[in-house]
């Protein structure tokens, strides 16, 4: 062991080009994330306090905040944002736990994952439309009982979507967040060493007479949660400040705070921009409070349930919870299937009058007319996705490698910064970023968009790769190094092959994230760069449900292909390796 440590030491001092790059990469990563996010924030904070050269406003003051307080319904807006964000995240989290607990170590978990993961890649706007079609007064549920049961010949009056309490938003966000959290948890549990250890502990608990669900909550959860915390916080931050879902499913008298801010920013009355900036700052504080609230709740639960972990009780009404979970899972899956079927039917629907359950005729014209206009957006979507993902993967790998070369994990500060773009509401810094971009006189919209996508792709890629990378068995590298392999060779020939599957998953995830970006593409690209997603949202708020359905299906298909490849390739690869 001593000998190996010495070898490593020598390698540290003998800095070849690879080691150089690796050592610089965390600093580069920091700069890449801090400058745009903080810069964007500053460019929003200054106007919030009245300093806006664009409007010839140079007096520092609280005028923007005064205007903000006087906005009618501001408290309702804030309440809506907080409530929808918190409740949807809590629901998604609890359901993730219930599903994991009820189906842990069974084949069902795989099936559920396979059904839910396509939802992960549906852009929010498309999902919102699909959900709206189910719950609307003229929607699928109402069509299924009309007119034979309800007697409705015309669509009845109803409150969903757009109900004033935000229930539709909560439903939409929960259904979108559930697959994400579940997939993240499964990703953590899929790590060879860690997952195996947990599965074995679970089995031991079962042998000791614990009910499966109890065993999950007492044995798995305490180990799993710390790794799941960041994804949950990211979901929470996103949900409290998202724009697409509340825009399509939420009320508008008043809307959520984030939607109101977007309207103010886009208002013809340019002085509203001061108020919008103040609002963005308020959103930032609000999101921060929600995150703190979650962390406080987490601590409270940890302390109040600490003793219960070791009290030896084997079951807590487990049969009831097991059944409830089955029913909930079936409900969620049938709801999602109904939404998907609805989406597919709309994409090929001719006339489809209420209360028919299926369209009067099926046509392909929506696909045909869309395909003509889709060539350029499709090209942009793919190239931007591929460039930003490859860049993010490379940088992530280099940073993780630097961790191993330095034999210590990157600092807490750095790991916090990596998630900065996920934790800071994008509505708060993107407008500032556009202003900065103008200042830098950067005229290439394409490069700017790729760069802005990296901001959002990088954290997810890092999140998905870090755990696997850190759990690599270092003995392989040590042996290779002691045989005289340079760090680059070790990296390329020892580490990367072991990481083949996680890298593919991270790539698919990165692509999916990039494909789904709306606000960054629109704002940073100045609208010049059309992607499938920007087109879909433009159409979703406008024209036809049929065309939107076509775009939503294409949007789903693209990342799905990525995930299928990421799932198939390692199997093929390992199969050939086994022969």
């Amino acid at each position, binding site marked *: 062991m001593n000998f190996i440590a010495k070898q490593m030491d020598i390698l540290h001092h003998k800095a070849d080009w690879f080691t150089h790059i690796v050592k610089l990469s965390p600093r580069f990563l920091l700069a890449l994330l801090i400058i745009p996010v903080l810069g964007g924030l500053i460019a929003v904070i200054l106007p919030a306090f009245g300093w806006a050269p*664009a*409007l010839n406003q140079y007096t520092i003051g609280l005028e923007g905040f005064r205007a903000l307080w006087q906005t009618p319904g501001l408290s*309702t807006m804030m309440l809506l944002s907080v409530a929808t964000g918190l409740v949807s995240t809590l629901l998604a989290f609890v359901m993730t736990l219930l599903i994991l607990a009820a189906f842990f170590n069974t084949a069902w978990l795989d099936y559920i994952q396979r059904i839910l993961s396509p939802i992960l890649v549906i852009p929010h706007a498309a999902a919102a439309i699909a959900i709206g079609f189910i719950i609307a007064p003229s929607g699928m549920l109402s069509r299924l009982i009309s007119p034979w049961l309800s007697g409705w010949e*015309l669509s009845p009056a109803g409150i969903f979507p757009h109900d*004033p309490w935000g229930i539709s938003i909560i439903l939409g966000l929960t259904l979108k967040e559930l697959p994400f959290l579940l997939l993240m948890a499964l990703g953590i549990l899929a790590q060879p060493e860690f997952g195996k250890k947990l599965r074995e502990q679970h089995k031991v608990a079962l042998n000791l007479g614990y009910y499966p669900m109890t065993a999950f909550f007492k044995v798995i959860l305490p180990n799993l949660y710390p790794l799941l915390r960041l994804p949950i916080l990211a979901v929470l931050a996103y949900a409290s400040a998202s724009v697409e879902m509340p825009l399509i499913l939420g009320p508008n008298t008043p809307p959520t705070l984030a939607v109101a801010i977007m309207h103010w920013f886009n208002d013809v009355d340019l002085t509203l921009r001061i108020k919008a900036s103040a609002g963005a700052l308020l959103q930032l504080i609000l999101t921060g409070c929600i995150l703190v609230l979650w962390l406080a709740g987490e601590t409270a639960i940890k302390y109040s349930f600490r003793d219960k972990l070791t009290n030896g009780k084997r079951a807590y009404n487990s049969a009831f919870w097991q059944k409830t979970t089955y029913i909930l899972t079936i409900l969620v899956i049938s709801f999602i299937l109904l939404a998907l079927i609805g989406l597919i039917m709309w994409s090929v629907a001719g006339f489809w009058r209420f209360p028919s359950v299926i369209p009067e005729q099926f046509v392909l014209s929506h696909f045909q007319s869309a395909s003509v206009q889709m060539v350029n957006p499709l090209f942009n979507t793919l190239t931007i996705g591929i460039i930003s993902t490859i860049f993010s993967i490379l940088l992530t790998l280099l940073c993780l490698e630097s961790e191993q070369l330095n034999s210590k994990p990157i600092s807490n500060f750095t790991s916090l910064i990596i998630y900065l773009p996920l934790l800071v509401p994008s509505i708060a810094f993107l407008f500032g970023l556009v202003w900065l971009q*103008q200042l830098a006189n950067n*005229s290439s919209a394409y490069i700017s968009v790729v760069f802005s996508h990296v901001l959002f792709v990088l954290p997810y890629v890092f999140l998905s790769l870090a755990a696997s990378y850190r759990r690599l068995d270092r003995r392989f590298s040590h042996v290779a190094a002691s045989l005289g392999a340079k760090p680059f060779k070790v990296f390329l020939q020892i580490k990367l092959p072991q990481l083949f599957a996680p890298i593919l998953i991270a790539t698919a995830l990165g692509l999916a994230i990039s494909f789904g970006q709306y606000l960054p593409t629109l704002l940073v690209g100045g609208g*010049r760069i059309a992607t499938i997603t920007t087109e879909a949202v433009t159409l979703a708020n406008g024209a036809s*449900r049929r065309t939107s359905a076509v775009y939503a299906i294409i949007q789903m298909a693209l990342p799905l292909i990525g995930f299928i490849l990421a799932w198939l390739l390692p199997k093929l690869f390992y199969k050939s390796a086994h022969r």
Partner: protein
Amino acid sequence: MLSSTDWQQLMRNSFFCVAFCFPLTLSLTISFNSIASTELTNRWQHIESLGKNQDVYFYAWGGDPQINAYIQWAGQQVKTLYNINLHHVKLTDTSEAVSRVLAEKSANNHSQGSVDLVWINGANFATMSEHALLLKQWANKLPNFQYTDPENNPAVNFDFGIPTQGMEAPWGQAALTFYYDNLSTQNPPSTLSELLSWSAKNTGRFSYPKPPDFLGLSFLKYVLVILHQKSATELKSQLYTPVTKQNKALILNPLWSFLNKLHPVLWRNGKHFPQSGEQMRRLVDDTELSLAFTFSAPTVPAAVKRFDLPQSIRSYAMSDGSLSNTHFVAIPYNATHQASAQIVANFLLSPIAQAHKQKQNVWGDSSVLIQSTLDDQQQELFKVQLPHPSALPFNSIKRTLSEPHPDWVKAIIEGWQTRYGISL
């Protein structure tokens, strides 16, 4: 790109041209008009030579597939004619373009702007013109501008009552028209007062997009203008002048008392409103609404042909008047490709482009050209085909109502927001 030296060169050329032509015209006794026209021709030749073979970024609302397809067609035409690459930047709201130009101005980007051409009118134009964000005195010098007959048709030089000063070239005309589902209702309202009684009878079957949506505001302006039709002339005329403290309540109170009666019988009891005209159209397709309206009548038959509305839809115009306005294209002061943008604007104004745009199956947007200025061949382009059953019957619009002063828009939005913006 036209730098300032280019402009000076251009001005000098025109000056030399005038100076050179003047004695010649005297001897040939050609009228002053033709000197001006020679000057304009030379100016145009210069712009054509500058603007060819370049890109033009056209910022235009992109929510309608038909309009997008028309812009795509125009792009192919200017590509063949001038080798100009027209890029349609699809906006969800035109104000996005306004804020972009403003952001560029604040960042001291005065000549490399990303917006070359923008589709605009009304309040967005008022804002851009107020902040001096637009290029001046070019639209009235476009060769095809003559076909709009500006001397006898002043509408093309005013945008919601504000003089355009050559900052925008007219592109099309629109009027507020209504459509209904004749399987749900056989007798749609034809006046504003009938609208109220019809809504009371068919509770929840009508609504309007939430202000500040353009179409929703247009509906409110229609209501406002109709409510003041019988007002004293002195009061009525204030609709077309800026808002003052004195006239604000006087003008707007009838509107609020009308809405107080209308809202309880609207869709969702007037507690939630559609976000846009397109969402309203979708609600008609869902049979939630039975009556709706649009500023672009041809989109109705087009939507039926795309299956986006049922075949039972019929269009009509209100008998007490239709709010109407002109929409334009403008060039920001800092546009990178100013000359190329003018070439595109001129093409959009050409008889070929305007006739193609007016076709029901293309876009159906009314032409801004005056038929008497066109020759026979050009007039031939505008011949119509058989209309679709859901299309607005020919000559339905009996009375047009002019847009109130844009100042009223802000007053309406503010008043609406405080009264109806919060339903809880």
